[in-house]
């Protein structure tokens, strides 16, 4: 009986500890445990300047997916996006990389288009817009190239 008690206490401790660890890594660390939900679309950018894996993809400020991977294809940045199944993207959707606030992190904003056709899974978003380079902007302002 005494031994049982010891094991029960240890089991309880391990359970609580593992739950705490799991909460930290899934909720705060955004770790993917279950199979990835959603479908994949690709978007090519001339530059992704500061966009990171796991950044959110938003339509009208609502999160609809996240950035899966970023790779270099023919000297352009190919971003793999994972979009929720419930969201359909029109064929002329515009993908743009924006900054949250003035110094916040980068995220991807999708502006829905008006086309009747939708982008199939593993399709490609044709219309893309690179992030605004603030340094370049300031530079051209100073040197009067507006």
């Amino acid at each position, binding site marked *: 009986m005494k031994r049982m008690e010891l094991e029960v206490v240890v089991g309880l401790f*391990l359970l*609580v*500890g593992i739950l*705490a*660890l799991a909460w930290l890594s899934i909720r705060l660390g*955004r770790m993917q445990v279950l199979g990835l939900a959603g479908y994949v679309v690709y978007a090519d950018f001339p530059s992704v300047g500061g966009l990171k894996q*796991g950044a959110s993809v938003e339509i009208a400020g609502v999160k609809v997916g996240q950035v899966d991977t970023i790779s270099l294809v023919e000297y352009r940045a190919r971003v793999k996006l994972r979009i929720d199944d419930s969201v359909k993207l029109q064929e002329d959707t515009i993908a743009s990389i924006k900054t949250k606030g003035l110094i916040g992190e980068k995220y991807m904003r999708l502006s829905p288009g008006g086309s009747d056709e939708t982008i199939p899974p593993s399709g490609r978003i044709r219309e893309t817009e690179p992030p605004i380079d603030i340094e370049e902007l300031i530079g051209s302002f100073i040197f009067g190239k507006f």
Partner: protein
Amino acid sequence: MRILWLLGEWALTSLRDGGRMMIFLGTALCWIFLPPLKWRRMIARIHFIGAKSLLVILLTGAFTGMVLGLQVFYTLTKFGSEAFLGPAVALTLIRELGPVLCALMVTGRAGSALTAEIGIMRITEQIDALHVMALNPMRYLVVPTILAGLIAFPLLTAIFDLVGIYGGYLVGVKLLGIGEGTYFGEMETYVGLGDITQGILKSLSFGLLVTWVCCYKGFYTGYGAEGVSRATTEAVVLSSVLILVWDYFVGSVLL
């Protein structure tokens, strides 16, 4: 001449002690990978190091989080950026304070007791008795303790972090009036998996460090009650100092 002699003696003694500690660690690590493992001893050790430290960890974690919430809030209001209270509390806890304070508390609560226990076994010749009975004291005493430390420390740290974040929530949101969504939302934005892995790696290394130092000091304790008392003090002091020193170096390498 006398000073030179003292300096040389000090250097040689420290070198010899350091080498002996390293050999102790090396042997212990070898025995970890050699079956059979004393499961029951290990469970008893997890109970002793982990489960029994839970109350201390809950208390210190909650108050650390609350203090962080309070102090960071007053600093951030000066810049009008209270919204970053959540990430500030969470990152401080996950990266630094969680692993370090947790290790220090467990050293004080369990480490000292481990040293005293093994030390008394040494001076009452129980370790020699184990040898005589052909029971390897390394396998029977040290390996289960080190493994238990490696298992218990990360879990205790995770609990500490969680309770601390909740404590910060109580002070920041309930007392000082930051939005609940702001607190947790910004936290989710700024805390990444890398921060959590760093915290866990730190606590793993602390688990090894504390159990190693405490077992070593107990295993090679001096003579009599005085020897055990000195070994216990040395174990706690050395563990605490090494935790803080090691924390800096791990932090600067992993950053």
